């Protein structure tokens, strides 16, 4: 299969046209007969004691079918731990009340649920639920939250997680340095701002199974729902609609438990759809980090030691903060060979909005810091920024700071060089407009932590007419995950792409494939589909070999036919072969289970151990024009170059990279979820600005294909990595333009003027 027919071709995704004509039924487009409308009452305080909840007036309102408070649901708690296909046990301390009863810990925390005949009545009912709060002192800064005597959000001491890396001899490393560069970096809360707010519909079917059709990245939340409600896991079914974006924000439970509770209590279908404001209030955010970096370097540019202290604001509940902070720890060194490393990371609870997964999952924050540090080092040594990186880049066979040996190709040099070259001629300065250039390199894992023992399953079957069905429980929040699975099956079975169907995930119909998170779906489910299709291919070729009296290795499948490679005219239509196999009872379907490499957890004292299946490497380069009088920054050109291993669908890969680049530019320059005393000051898309079509020019994309990834056909993951290097590259370009350091995001016009000393 060296010459691919379908793999590597920029095909139109099967879901694209249906979406363009508005025919796709998203989570909030689904109606059921007799459907009720749900609403959630939320805390107006970031920290308060609940003195009393009285739902009687709401219950008396005509049209209200159900009002639930914590007392009505047995004070249920939800395990907000790492979801999905994993045999690993959960962290018991990550429990979150489904509905608060004694106290609320962040503004927007759910306090009661309503189901009513109309949305209007449900809204009115919320106003009639009497809740008496007694505001309590809150803590809104992770540094304050760690001090003795700070209000306790999370017992016993607001520490949600700690991680460390101890490698080599840090003191000797710094002693050997000619120069030590030390700085502190800060990055803000960031909102996912997917276009589709959280939504779903639930109903209890004739078997007593709770069905939830929902916009999610995680089918396996049926387990959390079941556990939270205290019912068997086989009594909850999740149907995953095509989601209107996720980016990590639909990785945690959103509406699922609320819907299940309301459907169970009313025995009627219930719809729950968040407004935009509620979405911003109710779901997770990207972690703000405070990052102190200390890097020792020889005059020749070789890094001798790196020390990083990372402090992440976890907000009011842990959710995935323990894992995000672990990722940040593992990726804190950047893609560099450093013998002496000391990293301390702490995730701290506050009464701020809770933080959890967001594209990059702890990768982008340290990348901002270490890549700014690398430019500072270059400047201090009078070296070229690429040169100083080249001296320190990881290479295949090197070990990371946690002692993991890099197995795949490491095209760091090439990606940085090509991205920079793509910027072309440098734009000249003009009056107060100063032009600058910068780039950033990165490494970012794809696939989950290896001690989670991650698996994905896919079922592939051939129908009698030679068409193919894929059943794989992979949610598709927009990346084209399902379409790529079709390409893989099409390639392996020699079936035209239009003859392959992949169902959207449904725990009743599709085998569990794990989460669409951690840039794992192409890697994991792609491999599962590859295994399943390969198994069927083997059956087909073995049977055909008897028919043609040829060795199976001399046969191939393509364009819906089986044929002899050296004499393609000797062939048979695939449906004929399928019918022969079917008549003989040969298996024409296969359920494959793909397992990621399994490892034990890292050593908690030293952080040593294998953590991830593999890493993606690449670079982003950008040219900016800075108006030194107004501080405004114009992105003039940008280029992204990543080793994607193998581009299964180059159009989809380019789309992922351009989209990730754009989100990264927003992170660098514009996006800032302002939180003051626990209150979001940017509560809607009027205040929380994300880039529009006119803000940044098209990012040039350069694909490198080393073929060395652990995904199907050597693919690596690209969804999250696309974003990681963008913000530091922009910051480096701004620093190049103005000659002053930038150590926080977003780089607003005011920040630029402050850096220039103009105020």
């Amino acid at each position: 299969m060296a010459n691919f027919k379908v793999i590597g071709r920029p095909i139109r995704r099967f879901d694209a046209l249906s979406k363009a004509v508005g025919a796709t039924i998203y989570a909030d487009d689904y109606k059921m007969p007799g459907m009720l409308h749900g609403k959630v009452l939320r805390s107006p305080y970031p920290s308060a004691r609940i003195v009393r909840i009285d739902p009687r007036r709401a219950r008396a309102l005509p049209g209200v079918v159900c009002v639930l408070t914590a007392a009505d649901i047995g004070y249920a708690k939800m395990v907000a731990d790492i979801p999905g296909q994993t045999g690993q046990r959960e962290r018991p301390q990550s429990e979150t009340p489904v509905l608060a009863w004694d106290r609320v810990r962040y503004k927007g925390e759910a306090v009661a649920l309503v189901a009513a005949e109309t949305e209007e009545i449900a809204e009115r009912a919320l106003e009639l639920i009497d809740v008496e709060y007694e505001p309590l002192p809150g803590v809104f800064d992770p540094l304050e939250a760690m001090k003795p005597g700070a209000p306790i959000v999370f017992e016993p001491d607001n520490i949600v997680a700690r991680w460390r890396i101890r490698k080599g001899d840090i003191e000797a490393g710094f002693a050997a340095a000619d120069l030590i560069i030390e700085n502190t970096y800060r990055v803000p809360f960031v909102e996912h701002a997917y276009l589709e707010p959280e939504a779903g519909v639930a109903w209890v079917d004739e078997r007593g199974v709770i069905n939830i059709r929902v916009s999610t990245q995680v089918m396996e939340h049926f387990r959390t729902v079941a556990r939270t409600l205290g019912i068997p896991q086989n009594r909850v079914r999740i149907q995953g609609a095509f989601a209107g974006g996720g980016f990590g924000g639909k990785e945690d439970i959103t509406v699922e438990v609320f819907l299940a509770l309301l459907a169970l209590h009313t025995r009627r279908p219930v719809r729950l759809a968040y407004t935009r404001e509620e979405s911003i209030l109710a779901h997770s955010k990207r972690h703000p980090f405070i990052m102190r970096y200390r890097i020792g370097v020889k005059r020749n540019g070789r890094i001798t030691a790196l020390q990083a202290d990372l402090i992440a604001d976890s907000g009011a509940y842990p959710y995935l903060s323990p894992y995000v902070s672990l990722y940040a720890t593992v990726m804190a060194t950047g893609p560099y060979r450093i013998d002496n490393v000391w990293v301390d990371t702490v995730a701290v609870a506050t009464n701020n909005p809770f933080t959890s997964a967001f594209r990059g999952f702890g990768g982008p924050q340290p990348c901002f810091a270490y890549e700014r540090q690398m430019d500072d080092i270059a400047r201090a040594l009078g070296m070229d920024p690429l040169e100083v990186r080249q001296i320190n880049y990881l290479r295949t066979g090197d070990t990371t700071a946690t002692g993991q040996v890099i197995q795949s190709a490491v095209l760091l040099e090439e990606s940085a060089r090509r991205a920079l070259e793509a910027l072309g001629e440098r734009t000249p300065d003009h009056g107060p407009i100063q032009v600058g250039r910068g780039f950033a390199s990165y490494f970012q894992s794809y696939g989950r932590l290896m001690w989670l023992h991650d698996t994905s399953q896919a079922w592939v079957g051939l129908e009698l007419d030679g068409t193919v069905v894929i059943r794989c429980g992979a949610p598709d929040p927009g990346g084209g995950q399902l379409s790529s699975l079709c390409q893989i099956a099409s390639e392996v079975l020699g079936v035209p792409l239009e003859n392959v169907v992949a169902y959207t995930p449904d725990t009743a119909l599709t085998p569990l494939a794990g989460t669409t998170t951690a840039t794992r779906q192409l890697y994991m489910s792609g491999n599962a589909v590859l295994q399943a299709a390969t198994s069927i291919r083997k059956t087909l070729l073995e049977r055909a070999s008897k028919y043609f009296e040829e060795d199976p290795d001399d046969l191939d499948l393509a364009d819906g036919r089986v044929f002899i490679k050296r004499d393609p005219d000797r062939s048979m239509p695939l449906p004929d072969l399928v019918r022969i196999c079917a008549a003989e009872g040969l298996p024409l379907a296969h359920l494959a289970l793909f397992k990621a490499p399994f490892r034990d957890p890292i050593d908690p004292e030293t952080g040593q151990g294998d953590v991830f299946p593999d890493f993606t490497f690449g670079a982003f380069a950008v040219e900016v024009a800075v108006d030194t009088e107004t501080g405004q920054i114009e992105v003039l050109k940008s280029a992204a170059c990543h080793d994607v291993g193998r581009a299964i669908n180059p159009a989809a890969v380019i789309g992922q990279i351009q989209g990730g680049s754009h989100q990264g530019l927003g992170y660098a320059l514009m996006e800032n979820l302002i939180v003051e005393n626990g209150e979001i000051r940017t509560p809607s898309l009027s205040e929380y600005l994300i880039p529009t079509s006119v803000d940044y020019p098209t990012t040039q994309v350069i694909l490198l294909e080393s073929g060395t990834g652990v995904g199907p056909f050597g693919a690596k993951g690209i969804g999250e990595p696309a974003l990681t290097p963008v913000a530091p590259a922009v910051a480096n370009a701004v620093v190049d333009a103005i000659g002053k350091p930038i150590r926080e995001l977003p780089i607003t016009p005011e920040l630029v003027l402050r850096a220039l000393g103009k105020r």
Partner: protein
Amino acid sequence: MEPRLITLNINGRSHQVALKSNVTLLRALRDLGYTDVKNGCEKGDCGACAVLLNGRAVNSCLVLAWQADGAEIVTAAGLGTVDHPHPIQEALADSGGVQCGFCIPGIVIAAKALLDRNPHPTEEEIREAISGNLCRCTGYALIVEGIRRVAESRES
């Protein structure tokens, strides 16, 4: 607050509906089954609910249904179907401009309004025309490319 019977002419079909005064055109359309009109923010920030109202692209969340009484309304689904897509829809699907797709019906409407008035827009004009339609997935590049291709194919 009594409902009032109004006429909404949607995608060439006339609907008589009794609606209360505080119902937006967005809500009315979705309740009538035009779920291709997406609810992304309900305050005119995202453009996902864009429709043509008497030929002009507007946020249907910012129009009261009564204000659209008797008007001609076109949604993305009214421009084409999977079997007979509008060239803009076809081009967006082909260019790779559709990822999660939630913004796309609104962008199709904004692009239609642009090309109706300006059949050969520059890239800048295309970007400007969809600047009220937020997209979080694509970075807009392949969307712009798709719209550009429609304009180009019309030239030949």
